[in-house]
């Protein structure tokens, strides 16, 4: 391994911050690994870029949703007559305006959703299941009239006792959210109705035998609160019907095709009648995949005969869209005296929110993935509670589980007096090892992240002495994390322009710079400069099927499609060049933008010249590709963090953070670093401050940015990154998905650092000042 060479501009040298450690021996790429300005950048810094709420059609009406004030209640009746009578109100909708749906499971792209649950989440049927559950909606000529109108809708509720924790939900006499829900356990349903939607189990070896061989056993229980993705842009959609029966939606979404599929199922219309136009999106992190407002806006627009625009307020985003699961995790792990992990037994119960579908399965699969461990048993429970339906949030399920496993491992290391990185090196997984839940690892880079962390100056830098004069206690913690990443379907078209540039059309909404990484992979393949490829994100009428921007898949799979489309262009352009040179295409090489004959280097023609003469040689050249690739590379990360804890206030400050991650190949290193830093920042918020705060009646009390406290730039230091490149053998350029795994280690790394600072193990998230004081016995 060696550090990459490359000139560091002076202003970057002032904050060294980031480095790349790669195992390639020679620099083979012209474009990949460079840092061009992203293609959509100028529009975004000038304010010209159009996000979902920036569109305005003539005649637009404004839609508002009426939301339940109760966490759990039967709806006895809904009277919308006064709202309908208000001047300016053009349409009112309740669940009866949506087609009734049977219990149908639809494979809607990456996430599998139960359509009836999705429909009743969009507009409640019979019961409301969380504070904020949508009950009715109106469309009016102004937002003020719409707000007035929803206040005139009379709903008669029979309030029911709410269930607000997995413990409460799993009691035998707990109030049931869904009277017909029984526990599913791998194809079998239980007899009695329950709030436990499913039970899954991973078992390997014999945990009892493993524990009996352990010199050190640690057993702990952990609790985490729901946390929200926290994207700055609220959900928004504009819906318009045409007299030919077609529907167009302009919106922000992580997946235009997923929205199209969901709307087709929910409104029972063919996909061919729906066009979804994705505008720029202001953050998603998994929370902008399933629909909330879109079917409602469509129904209102149909009834009113005019376009309807709906945007959530910030409070509605918190109350009405999925956070990720709160959880209770019990974990027992054992290790031998010489530091080998012998056994792990875990119980995971995750809050699914109002409808089944927490990411507990993923949590159980990721929890121990970094380690070789013979004896494992994990029981995982998906539990419904009266909170908003959980939605995907960046490596869904993994962070909760890693908070437990990485904390317990730290405690084992302490008892064995072993360095935590050495311990992980000893037990860490590599190519050919079998993951705890079964599959064998291909080439992976986990150990390389540990080595890079160990070698980093941060790891050996002196911590300020813990008896420092400012009274604070200082500590350092480490943690690792794993996420499996996703492949999925993508399409790309690459058209050759007469000036030798490429129009690259793809279907992945660009949340973090993926237009650039797609264009760069295309450019690399054709020997063009990054700026000679013009990427466009197209709507569902203009590009072939493409799955969501999520699951860390876009640079991997959409990039692959762009690579394949570029290969198709190369084949066709080679034939055209051959015609112009009057030789065989097999004789030609393309390098540096020039086709040259292998037999006679005098015979050559530039790519640009061939492009200018396409009309003479057969017409336009368009390359196309669709992919559903295998060879998805999994992701590992190892983080190191220094904290200072004020023992009087319980406040924890992050002093220094280093994130190490195996990215396979960094297409655009700046945006890879950005994903790492962004995941860390969300993880810091999850660790220290963020939580959904409920009263006893199940009402969410902190539905604002003031009280749902996300990190500001004053709460974070510079976040140093180390990009480790162990190329994914499955991908043409070695790419591994990078976006999700960086959120997995931070809560545990910070918990471990806090322990090393104050000597108390934290087992709740967030580790807010109040929790730290309580854990250290200062609130008695």
């Amino acid at each position, binding site marked *: 391994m060696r550090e990459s060479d490359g000139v560091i501009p002076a202003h970057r040298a002032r904050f060294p911050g980031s480095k790349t450690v790669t195992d390639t021996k020679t620099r083979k790429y012209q474009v990949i690994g460079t840092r061009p300005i992203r293609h959509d950048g100028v529009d975004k810094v*000038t*304010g010209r870029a159009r996000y979902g709420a*920036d569109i305005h059609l003539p005649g637009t009406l404004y839609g508002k949703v009426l939301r339940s004030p109760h966490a759990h209640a039967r709806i006895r009746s809904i009277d919308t007559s006064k709202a309908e009578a208000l001047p300016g109100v053009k349409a009112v909708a309740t669940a009866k305006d949506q087609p009734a749906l049977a219990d149908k499971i639809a494979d809607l792209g990456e996430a599998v959703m139960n359509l009836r649950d999705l429909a009743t989440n969009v507009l409640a049927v019979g019961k409301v299941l969380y504070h904020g559950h949508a009950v009715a909606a109106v469309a009016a000529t102004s937002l003020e009239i719409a707000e007035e109108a929803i206040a005139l809708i009379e709903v008669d509720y029979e309030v029911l006792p709410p269930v607000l924790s997995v413990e409460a939900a799993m009691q035998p006499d707990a109030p049931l959210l869904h009277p017909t829900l029984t526990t599913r356990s791998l194809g079998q349903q239980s007899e009695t109705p329950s709030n436990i939607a499913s039970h899954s189990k991973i078992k390997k070896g014999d945990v009892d035998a493993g524990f009996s061989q352990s010199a050190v056993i640690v057993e702990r229980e952990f609790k985490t609160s729901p946390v929200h993705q926290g994207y700055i842009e609220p959900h928004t959609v504009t819906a318009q019907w045409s007299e030919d029966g077609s529907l167009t939606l302009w919106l922000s979404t992580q997946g235009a095709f997923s929205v199209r599929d969901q709307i087709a199922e929910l409104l029972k219309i063919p996909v061919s009648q729906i066009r979804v136009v994705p505008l720029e999106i202001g953050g998603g992190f998994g929370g902008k995949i399933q629909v909330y407002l879109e079917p409602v806006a469509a129904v209102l627009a149909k009834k009113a005969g005019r376009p309807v625009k709906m945007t959530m307020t910030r409070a509605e985003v918190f109350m009405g869209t999925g956070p990720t699961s709160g959880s209770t995790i019990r974990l027992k792990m054992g290790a031998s005296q010489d530091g080998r992990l012998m056994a792990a037994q875990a119980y995971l119960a995750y809050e699914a929110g109002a409808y089944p579908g927490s990411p507990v399965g993923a949590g159980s699969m990721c929890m121990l993935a970094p380690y070789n461990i013979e004896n494992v048993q994990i029981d995982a429970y998906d539990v419904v509670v009266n909170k908003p339906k959980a939605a995907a949030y960046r490596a869904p399920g993994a962070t909760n589980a890693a908070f437990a496993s990485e904390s317990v491992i730290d405690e084992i290391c302490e008892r064995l007096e072993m360095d935590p990185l050495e311990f992980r090196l000893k037990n860490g997984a590599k190519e050919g090892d079998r993951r705890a839940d079964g599959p064998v690892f291909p080439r992976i880079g986990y150990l390389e992240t540990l080595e890079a962390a160990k070698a980093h100056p941060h790891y050996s830098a002196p911590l300020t002495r813990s008896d420092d004069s400012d009274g604070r206690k200082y500590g350092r913690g480490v943690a690792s994390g794993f996420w499996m990443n996703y492949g999925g379907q993508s399409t790309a078209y690459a058209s050759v322009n007469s000036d030798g540039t490429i129009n690259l059309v793809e279907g992945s909404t660009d949340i973090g710079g993926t237009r650039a990484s797609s264009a760069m992979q295309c450019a690399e393949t054709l020997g063009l400069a990054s700026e000679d490829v013009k990427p466009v994100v197209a709507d569902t009428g203009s590009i072939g099927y493409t799955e969501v921007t999520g699951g860390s898949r876009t640079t991997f799979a959409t990039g692959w499609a762009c690579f394949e489309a570029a290969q198709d262009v190369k084949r066709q352009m080679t034939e055209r060049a051959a015609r112009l040179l009057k030789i065989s295409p097999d004789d030609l090489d393309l390098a540096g933008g020039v086709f040259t004959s292998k037999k006679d280097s005098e015979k050559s023609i530039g790519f640009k010249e061939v492009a200018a003469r396409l009309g003479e040689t057969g017409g336009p050249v368009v390359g196309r590709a669709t992919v559903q690739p295998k060879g998805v590379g999994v992701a590992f990360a190892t983080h190191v963090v220094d904290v200072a804890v004020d023992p009087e206030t319980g406040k924890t400050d992050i002093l220094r953070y280093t994130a190490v991650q195996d990215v396979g190949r960094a297409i655009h290193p700046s945006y890879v670093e*950005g994903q790492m*830093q962004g995941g860390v920042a969300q993880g810091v918020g999850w660790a220290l401050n963020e939580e959904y705060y409920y009263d006893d009646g199940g009402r969410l009390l902190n539905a604002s940015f003031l009280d749902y406290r996300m990190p500001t*730039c004053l709460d974070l230091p*510079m976040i140093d990154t180390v990009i480790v490149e162990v190329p994914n053998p499955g991908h043409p350029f070695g790419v591994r998905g990078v976006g999700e795994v960086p959120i997995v280690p931070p809560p545990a790394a910070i918990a471990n650092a806090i322990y090393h600072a104050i000597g108390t193990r934290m087992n709740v998230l967030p580790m807010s000042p109040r929790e730290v004081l309580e854990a250290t016995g200062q609130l008695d």
Partner: protein
Amino acid sequence: MKTHVQARINGEEVEFLCEPSQSLLEVLRDVLGLTGAKEGCNNGNCGACNVILDGRLVNSCLVLGVETQGSEIATVEGMAADGRLHPLQQRFLEEAALQCGICTPGFLVSARALLDVHPHPTEQQARQWLAGNLCRCTGYDKIVRAVIGTADGGR
């Protein structure tokens, strides 16, 4: 009954009609079509709507449109000039200080206001000043580098 307001936005004379209850943010976005300022929270907690009003950095969601009679307003749309990006905008692009970009207009306006007052801010000063702008994508590292880098590189 709408109120008639005259102001200067990005150096240009502007007239508009608005309800007394409409915020400056609504006026910019819905009346004047200047959608650079964004609504993230509508109660002064995220900074995505920041503009400079008579030389002061404000959340435009907390200012009424009618309050801006006779005022000078600077939005993100006024930062590029004569076909060239403002140095802050250029540096944000070079440093990759944006991912989804929704907070970027707010940060650019805030950073411009910062550099007007502190032409060479320390990292701490920059972070303090920018703490009113939330970003969920970047972790702020590259934003702070871009702002300080612009100051170091001159304006």
